[in-house]
């Protein structure tokens, strides 16, 4: 019989980095050298992380397949399992299974402008896609990253921005809902900054991830700017257990977010009931 779909690969925590007060980034190294060679994924897919003795939960791969020496996740402390993750120390053994779900359709985006719009820890779900686009930058035109957080202290991946900006035709626009002393970037909500920046929809794709309220207003702005539903892509999350469309809880209509998503275009979503 084929591999047991519920059984994780063992991995060790090799690096922990505090991003903000409640967000940490982790690097995991798969223990079995054979698995390390064959374990691959595509930007946008997710994995199930297993904290033995506590339970499992779902995270997106934070790093793309072009930087796949380790498996990386960026995790906000929000519930029982993520609290246990935040307690992990270097050398701890965890389990990983996956990859699950679909991925960002880069093959359809060749030669286009990419506009990433993220809020809060939502940037973690887009990081794999952003870094994949930067690693293969010749395939795309301008890469714009509009990122907002509650406050300057809540900005995730601060130390990655200077490397990202070094890639030709890449621009990062940062905003905080509330500014602070020394904050040299924009102040205001992401949708308002988007309106001010006024990106052209010509030959562009907008990729968004953030809290539902941000997504709602960003969608409105993008449509006002002339983006068509086909040009808007987002990634959804719902409670999941299996990752393979079997446990029955992450459906929106007949689609399972874990299996048919998590990446959807707005043209797909607008025909689905608002139950996610």
């Amino acid at each position: 019989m084929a591999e047991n779909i519920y059984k994780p690969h063992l991995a060790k925590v090799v690096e922990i980095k505090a991003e903000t007060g409640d967000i940490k980034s982790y690097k995991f190294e798969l223990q079995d050298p054979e698995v390390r060679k064959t374990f691959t994924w595509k930007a946008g897919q997710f994995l199930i992380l297993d904290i033995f003795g506590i339970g499992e939960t779902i995270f997106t791969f934070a790093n793309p397949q072009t930087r796949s020496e380790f498996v990386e996740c960026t995790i906000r402390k929000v519930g029982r399992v993520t609290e246990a993750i935040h307690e992990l120390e270097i050398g701890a053994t965890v389990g990983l299974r996956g990859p699950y779900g679909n991925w960002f359709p880069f093959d359809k985006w060749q030669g286009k402008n990419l506009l990433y719009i993220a809020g809060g820890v939502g940037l973690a779900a887009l990081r794999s896609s952003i870094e994949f686009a930067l690693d293969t930058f010749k395939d795309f035109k301008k890469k714009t990253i509009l990122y907002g957080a509650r406050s300057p202290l809540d900005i995730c991946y601060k130390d990655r921005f200077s490397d990202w900006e070094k890639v030709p035709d890449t621009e990062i626009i940062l905003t905080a809902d509330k500014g602070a002393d020394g904050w040299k970037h924009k102040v205001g909500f992401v949708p308002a900054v988007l309106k001010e920046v006024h990106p052209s929809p010509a030959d562009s794709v907008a990729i968004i991830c953030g809290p539902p309220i941000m997504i709602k207003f960003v969608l409105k702005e993008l449509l006002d700017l002339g983006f068509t539903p086909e040009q808007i892509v987002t990634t959804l999350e719902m409670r999941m257990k299996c990752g393979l469309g079997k446990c029955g809880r992450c459906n929106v209509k007949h689609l399972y977010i874990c299996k048919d998503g998590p990446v959807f275009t707005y043209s797909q979503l607008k025909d689905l009931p608002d139950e996610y």
Partner: protein
Amino acid sequence: MAYLIIKDDIKNLLDELIKVKAVFAPKKDAEDTVLFGKLASGAEWYGDSLLTHTTAKDKVYLQSETFFKIKKDKNGVFLEDPAEPAETVIFGCRPCDARGFDIIGKLFNWSGFVDEYYTKRIQKTTIITISCEKPESTCFCTSFLNGSPVNSTGSDLLLTPLKEGSCLAEAITAKGEAIITGYSRYFKEAGAAEEKAKIEFKTEAEKKITKKLDLPGIKQKLDTSFDSSYWDTAHLPCVKCGACTFVCPTCYCFDITEKAFDNINSERVRSWDTCMSELFTRMAGGVNPRIDTKKRFRQRFMHKFNYHVDNFKEELCTGCGRCIKACPVSIDIRSVIENV
């Protein structure tokens, strides 16, 4: 090729099977409730009730299944697989229950992702089904394509009681064939008269099922009724107990949790879950896309008669009617979907 088995020999056959396999059959418990229980002798089989209180689903798809045991100590983490499932016979289930295994079996193999716990168990299980002579008012199996009191989908061996104190025995799969050849002293070849008697049995039994749903029509209605005000009131009597989902032969939704015994030992466990529970879709942080009872109620019927049909071209229901009997507030699944 069809065979005959005398009703008195069925108990003898069960006595033989018990020696080599775990045999589960309808059996009265201490409170006279008829449930699938493990037989110690063929005489324990209680064949007089149409439907057991709950299905035989839990004999293959365990209500609580240990995926693996975890030992975490200073030497690392070790995962231990559970024991291989035993050879099992489910005897005396009804065609609706047997068809339930066929339906959830497809889900457990969906998109090439094989659930090995379900698959290993069903491979080691022989399902011996008995056709329904006296369907009840809650039965509606004939609403489904191929659904009938004599349907063989999901069964390995189908027994149909005939008037002369014997049953027509039809092997549906190799596992069913193996029962007939392995215990051939209890089976003799049936003739044309008995095969004809089965057709009469079918006609008579089907006549007793008066409720027939227009399922393609209902599917079409459900396609456009997600936002219908119907759901605002339809869910009101529901107390969200989830009994309907636990007695259902096709409800398959599950949870995966960790059962920790101490700081070293734990188990990864899969258990039946219910879409009627608020926790079912509640995420860490508190967001819940189906927080209203209306949404959970709608999900149950949409899943069974709309979404599942989109994905599998068949309903997630066999018409056994157990949910109608189990519901503490008398919600009838048939009227819920007909009245949309």
